[in-house]
């Protein structure tokens, strides 16, 4: 790594005195490969990949983990996290994960899906996998559009939001209403932990990591399906800078998709918050 850019700090403490292994507080987890991510600058996918990799490493389940990648920008997730992966057809990740989890009861199986994948073409698969209470974790990245294909309208696109296929904004008379699919899933008795998080601030990332940790633990304890929605940005699709996209998300997405836990119980019970 390049150290030339840093200069002397104030007092007698030289920068080289700080950069010692015993002072290390944060570094890239070893589960993330050295392959540079293909995501656009500032994309939320990178952060969610990172916290998943950190958790799998910290919980010591690397050998048992199987991820099911979606169709979408995260289709290349297998290049970045050093665990077993399976690629599924568009929207069918929960069905593929069901098969993997049933034949490998000791494995930690998770799907990683976007909103076009999970809430649109895969709506049936996700509903039935959650209703069956499969012991899988579903990580749902909700950025309000189809990011990979050029920013078309998704079921989660906000009312009035301009996308490639709604150049005058989403019209609810014509296109229907933005779907809060996580709220629907929280109604299903097969789910154990359903929550909505965001990763636009450092605090949000830490909270999301705690939620994902709980979700992974629930899957390991065979409590049923855990579902973690991450409200995310697609700054390229939204035509904003990464920082402006984070601000736009906070002002527009989070009021419609409020953060917090929606259900915290075990499968078969209906105790919703």
């Amino acid at each position, binding site marked *: 790594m390049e150290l030339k850019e*840093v200069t002397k700090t104030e007092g007698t403490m030289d920068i080289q005195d700080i950069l010692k292994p015993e002072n290390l507080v944060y570094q890239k987890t070893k589960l993330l490969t050295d392959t540079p991510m293909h995501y656009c600058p500032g994309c939320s996918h990178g952060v969610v990949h*990172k916290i998943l990799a950190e958790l799998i490493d910290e919980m010591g389940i690397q050998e048992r983990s199987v991820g099911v990648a979606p169709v979408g920008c995260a289709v290349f997730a297998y290049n970045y996290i050093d665990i077993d992966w399976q690629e599924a057809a568009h929207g069918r990740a929960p069905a593929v994960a069901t098969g993997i989890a049933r034949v490998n009861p000791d494995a930690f199986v998770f799907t990683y899906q976007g909103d076009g994948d999970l809430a649109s073409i895969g709506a049936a698969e996700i509903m039935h996998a959650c209703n069956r209470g499969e012991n899988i974790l579903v990580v749902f990245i909700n950025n309000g559009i189809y990011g990979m294909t050029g920013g078309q309208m998704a079921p989660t696109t906000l009312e009035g939001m301009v996308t490639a296929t709604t150049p005058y904004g989403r019209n609810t008379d014509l296109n229907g209403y933005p779907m809060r699919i996580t709220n629907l899933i929280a109604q299903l008795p097969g789910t154990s932990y359903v929550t909505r998080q965001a990763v636009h601030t450092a605090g949000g*990332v830490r909270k999301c990591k705690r939620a994902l940790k709980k979700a992974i633990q629930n899957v390991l304890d065979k409590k049923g399906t855990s579902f973690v929605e991450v409200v995310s940005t697609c700054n390229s699709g939204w035509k904003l*800078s990464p920082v402006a996209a984070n601000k736009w998300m906070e002002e527009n997405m989070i009021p419609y998709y409020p953060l917090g836990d929606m259900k915290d119980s075990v499968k078969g019970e209906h105790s919703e918050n």
Partner: protein
Amino acid sequence: MARVIGAVVVDKEECKGCSVCVDACPHDVLALHFEVNSKGYHYSYMKSPEACVGCANCGVVCPDTCITVYRTKAS
């Protein structure tokens, strides 16, 4: 009195210059460099290293995990 001081190391070839870390830094330590890396991105660097407290917010929000954070106490 002991004072917490920190330092970050940005892997400038990995950095994509999204500036999310610049926004996340509570002490305005980081900024985007005038120069670009081999990918053509203005990479992040410590503009005011003396202000860093090693809170690791930059590393936590970095989507490309190119920031390593160190923290110690100076007497």
